[in-house]
């Protein structure tokens, strides 16, 4: 029989510390759905997703019931739609987003990701057509998420794409102005995007992947926070050890669920993504972990070092617990989705510049940050360029998910509800970067790319 204290510890993690599996994401290739007719392409997409994912939600619920561990989201990621739609002649490519939306609703999943284009070195006519349709796609659908990769360490930064994405973000906000620019919460601009990320809004099914695959994203900021409370005042060696031990346990849950889902669905297991993903619920915050390490408020001096330790220890603990680790794997710092980040931003301690520094040492980037509605497109592009530079030079994934909330300014709040949370509008620098962004072209790949 298992040890009594072990059983009680696991129950406390689930009941009181918000331990959950954040997502089971089924990756589905749509490469066999290409068709010269856009209408026919949409039909093939709908049919394939519904065929592959028809048991996904039901299976997720059964695992949740039997194993007694909450699985918060069931999601689908697909091949970047720009690739699938490249050969479509004429028609409105946003119709494919509507096909994705219908398929996701039919399968009962929470989100579907992959209305995406990969343009880090250059864009094809199909890529540009898809990118230009993003505002319409995100305003006319409920469940579709979109991402665009504008830079890689190997290729450098496509500044034409960066400039275009600033305008697309603004247009998406304008088209969803009645919902505080909610469309932008479903749009991520990446550098070094990964092909097996199970988390939204940036999930897509990479071209190097199998036809269908199961990826699982774990969570557990609350569990780490609780464990660190037990070592208050102790040296960082013990802090790191404690995070590692906790991450190991959390990831073992993820691996178990991934294996069960893979077996029951008859779909190969891809990766467990070891990310610490917060929610707006009290007790499920990454910011509060950093504060537990001894910072008065997240965002003050010391925050970057604390986050670096956390991010590294999560990976070291998690990597031994899973047969395949991938995705983004690290600590997330989405402002509106983290109760402690929201509080720190409202207090004025956590600013955009500090968040940018924090993205140098953790997974992803400037995430779920509301900025004034009158922020120029060029400023958003410049923010994207800064983040892309961090990713490209440091050989890591970075991303920007900003919401220029229409009609809102510093001091206002935006409310998205649910896991997307709410956020105070944060200031951006008023000085222009328009001439910088207008240059266009490519920022060359850094020396780090020359590894061969």
């Amino acid at each position: 029989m298992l040890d009594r204290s072990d059983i009680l510890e696991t129950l406390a993690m689930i009941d009181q510390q918000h331990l959950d599996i954040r997502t089971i994401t089924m990756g589905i290739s749509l490469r066999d759905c290409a068709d010269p007719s856009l209408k026919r392409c949409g039909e093939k997409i709908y049919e394939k997703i519904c065929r592959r994912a028809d048991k996904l939600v039901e299976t997720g619920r059964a695992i949740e019931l039997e194993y007694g561990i909450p699985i918060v989201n069931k999601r689908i990621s697909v091949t970047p739609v720009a690739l699938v739609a490249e050969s479509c002649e004429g028609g409105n490519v946003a119709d494919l987003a509507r096909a994705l939306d219908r398929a996701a609703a039919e399968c009962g999943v929470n989100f579907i990701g992959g209305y995406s284009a990969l343009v880090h070195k250059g864009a094809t006519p199909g890529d540009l057509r898809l990118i230009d349709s993003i505002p319409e796609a995100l305003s006319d659908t409920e469940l579709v998420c979109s991402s665009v990769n504008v830079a890689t360490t190997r290729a450098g930064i496509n500044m034409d794409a960066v400039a275009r994405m600033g305008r697309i973000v603004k247009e998406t906000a304008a088209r969803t102005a009645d919902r505080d620019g909610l469309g932008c919460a479903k749009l991520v601009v990446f550098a070094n995007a990964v092909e097996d990320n199970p988390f939204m809004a940036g999930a897509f099914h990479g071209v190097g992947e199998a036809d269908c695959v199961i990826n699982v994203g774990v969570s557990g900021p609350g569990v780490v926070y609780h464990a660190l409370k037990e070592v208050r005042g102790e040296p960082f060696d013990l802090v790191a050890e404690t995070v590692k031990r906790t991450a190991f346990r959390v990831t073992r849950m993820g691996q178990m669920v991934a294996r069960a889902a893979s077996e029951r669905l008859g779909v190969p297991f891809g990766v467990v993504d070891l990310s610490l993903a917060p929610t707006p619920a009290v007790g499920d915050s990454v910011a509060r972990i950093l504060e537990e390490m001894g910072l008065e408020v997240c965002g003050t001096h010391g925050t970057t070092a604390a986050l670096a330790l956390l991010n590294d220890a999560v990976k070291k603990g998690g990597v031994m617990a899973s047969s395949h680790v991938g995705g983004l794997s690290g600590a997330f710092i989405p402002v509106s989705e983290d109760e402690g980040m929201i509080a720190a931003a409202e207090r004025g301690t956590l600013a955009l510049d500090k968040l940018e520094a924090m993205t140098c040492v953790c997974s992803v980037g400037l995430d779920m940050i509301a900025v004034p509605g009158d922020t120029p497109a060029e400023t958003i592009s410049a923010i994207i360029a800064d983040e892309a530079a961090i990713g490209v030079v440091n050989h890591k994934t970075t991303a920007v998910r900003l919401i220029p909330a229409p009609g809102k300014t510093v001091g206002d709040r935006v409310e998205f509800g649910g896991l997307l949370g709410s956020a105070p509008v944060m200031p951006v620098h008023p000085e222009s970067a328009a001439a910088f962004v207008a240059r266009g072209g490519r920022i060359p790949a850094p020396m780090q790319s020359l590894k061969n």
Partner: protein
Amino acid sequence: MRAVMTVIGPDRVGIIAGVSGLLAEKNVNILDLSQTIMGGIFTMMLLVDTAGANCSFEALRDAIDAWGGENGLSMRIQREDTFSAMHRI
């Protein structure tokens, strides 16, 4: 399927009798049982085999939830794997 069942709540006469009666009614076999009082709280853990159960796992879980609710006890049933995955290498 082997599952761990936990029963936690204020102590009183008849909890073990009630729980084992409920499991017998569902034809669920008890493989191991450990019970103690922790800080005045009745705490019991059972390892059970649901292979011969005369109802679905969901129905069993619902019956356990209902009985726990009626008797002021927090009761859970989960696959044993949940705990062994976390605590055994």
